[in-house]
């Protein structure tokens, strides 16, 4: 047998085992120096150093906002921020994570936003109207959201636009942690998005109709019939089902409408 050079993966799951000779760089975890293989994310670097997360780590994929981090590069006055699972380490990074930040989040009932949403919103989050326009929130946002702008839109009553503008928010809390006006921007944005979904966007008429049909028990009959079929009969129906064309228009109808 000819000799093949087989390389096996070293890293198991998310555990990093760098190949021999991998370059290591110094990073400072809360001020203490560790040598870490380059190209790791901050999150994995901290684990590589021997820490085990309970707080400060969630999805590990940039969407849950659990891993907000502040850092400076040694020798520079600039304070930087990001998500630990989405930021790669650089030499001489000085790191501190922000695993939790207290925010203001009053209770509300959604119905109060039915009539004058802006007025009701003002009652819940009056502090939003005290924004001083410093732009710090926009600078720290790891999702590149113009936070100051969505706050301005909220102030002006343009709630729909504010909802859309804040849509990518992962609720990491970095904006709130730096706000001189003590606003919990992302909590206000959460509310505004719900107001938008519920009251500022037309409801789906076809869905209302379908809901009634389901409640009437119409489909339970069809489903009961399907459950009575033999495997072969079911497979036949499966194979013969008409496929909606990729380029169909909304409201498309199939040829056979007896099972709709």
């Amino acid at each position, binding site marked *: 047998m000819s000799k093949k050079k087989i390389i096996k993966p070293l890293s198991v799951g998310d555990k990093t085992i760098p190949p021999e000779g991998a370059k290591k760089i110094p990073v400072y975890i809360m001020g203490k120096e560790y040598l870490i293989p380059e190209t790791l994310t901050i999150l994995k670097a901290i684990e590589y150093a021997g820490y085990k997360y309970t707080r400060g780590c969630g999805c590990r994929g940039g969407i849950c906002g659990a891993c907000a981090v502040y850092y400076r590069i040694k020798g520079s006055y600039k304070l930087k921020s990001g998500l630990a699972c989405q930021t790669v380490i650089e030499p001489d990074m000085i790191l501190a994570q922000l695993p939790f930040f207290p925010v203001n989040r009053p209770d509300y009932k959604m119905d109060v936003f039915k009539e004058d949403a802006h007025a009701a919103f003002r009652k819940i989050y009056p502090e939003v109207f005290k924004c001083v326009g410093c732009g710090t929130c926009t600078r720290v946002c790891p999702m590149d959201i113009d936070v100051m702008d969505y706050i301005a839109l909220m102030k002006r009553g343009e709630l729909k636009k504010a909802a859309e503008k804040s849509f990518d928010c992962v609720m990491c809390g970095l904006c709130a942690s730096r706000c001189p006006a003590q606003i919990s921007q992302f909590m206000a944005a959460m509310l505004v998005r719900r107001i938008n979904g519920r009251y500022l966007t037309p409801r789906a008429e076809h869905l209302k109709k379908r809901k009634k049909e389901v409640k009437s028990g119409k489909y339970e009959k*069809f489903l009961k019939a*399907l459950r009575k079929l033999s495997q072969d009969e*079911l497979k036949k129906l499966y194979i013969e089902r008409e496929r909606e064309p990729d380029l169909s228009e909304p409201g498309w109808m199939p040829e056979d409408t007896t099972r709709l």
Partner: protein
Amino acid sequence: MSGYIHELKELIKKVEATRPSRLESARKNEHFPALSMEDRMKWLSSYHPDFKDEGRRKVKVGPNKGDVLPEEVVDVFESRSRLDLKEVNLDNVDFETDVLVIGGGGAGTAAALMAESEGKSVIISTKLRHGDANTIMAEGGIQGATQEGDSPHYHYLDVMGGGHFTNSPDLVAALVNDAPLIIDWLEELGMMFNKYADGRLMVRHGGGTCRKRMHSSGDMTGAEIMRVIRDEAKNRKGINVMEFSPAVELILDREGRCAGAVLYNLETREYYVVKAKAVVLATGGFGRLHIQGFATTNHYGATADGLVIAYRAGVKTCFLEATQYHPTGVVYPEQNVGLLITEKVRGLGAQLVNSEGNQFCFPLEPRDVESACIIRECLDIGKGIMTPTGRIGVWLDSPMIDLLHGEGTVKKELPAKYIQFKRYGIDISKEPMLVYPTLHYQNGGLEINEFAETSVPGLFSAGEVSGGIHGKNRLMGNSLLDVLVFGRRAGCRASEYVSGKKSAGSALTLDHVKRFHKELERAGLKDAPTAPILLPDYTPDEVKSRRWEK
């Protein structure tokens, strides 16, 4: 850090060298031949983790005794309690509630909302923060027959076909019938769906659908669902969320009904006794068990805890032998490890090539076959590429897409992926990606009926922790749906159960755990490790070897 490091750049040159001739053949519609049916089976059985005997073994104890399952699952099934049972004092109840929901993801939160609406007091025990869950990670969408040209009838057929007709028909019927109600519920709660100006919901096809019924909210559908229902839960007076307090054992009463759980405070390392009239288990999947060492798309807390504690209480599992791997998960750069690259990329003409720049398989084999091909090329043939952090993969030659379909196609067709790599200095319209199969979804789980009831009275189960709905294979968009359908059903049924006269009342016990320990001993597993493991351990061996304490 920007782009590929020097060593990888050198290797990319080999891909570039073969690209012109590969392009030429692709233009002539000449492809690397697909495997014959026979070879498919052969390759699957030799290389696909689901088919290999290696990495699987028979469970020696518990309700699934004798079944062959992945080693990592068997390891946690054949385990002892974390608790020193002699120390636990169940008379000392720390919290009491009508319904205890274990798990703060989509299924758990939906259950809590329904139970609270029914006037029940609810405690949500969750391991990390409320919402740190697989639910928040779902990008693609949620299915539901909301359009006039579609109906639950067709949705049913699609789900059954996708699961190779192995699914439990009653569960599928419940899933598809409730689906429009779920979409309506989310709209009512204020979720921002993708819509036309008149309010009509936008829908797309998904793999294996005959009607367009995939609803989405940008490319963060799961995140939007999760943050909306979590926000609603905050407004509910009757819901009390206990974060960083995972359940480590279920508590039963003398009659064998579920009567609460023991929770663990991850920060102070104390245990709490929670007494409940009904318990809903919604702990999600097992991606972080890293079956056979695979990287995973799952969140940090996906460690199969719910399976473990219910198994000890006597609940049987199904379909756990079928794990969903996605063939093309990213292995470089580190920030993107585990990230999914959709089939669309291969559909648009990107080929899989090895370290020498050569093709080794037809790019559009079924998911499981494609995964087997990649694993074979790396581990058997030895033509994988090693990353600086010790991962291995093959090239997915995405620059072919623009060359085949015109400049700008990648940016237009794959905007999110383009940006995700661009952020780290890699232009996927000019440079290939490094990929390897990744562990994505736990198809199987605890056996339930259409009311989300398990075989233990008072114990309900919903979401990824349960099995049977998707049979051996889940279609995209049906899981977000499943967690909400069965989460809500569990919440409602648990409330009914609490209102009825049959719920738990007599003394609390952990006798089922003692019995399980005895069974372990009889099977020669006296020194089995403890579980649930709660959090994966990524500490390097070097660090561990310096932990010199006892």
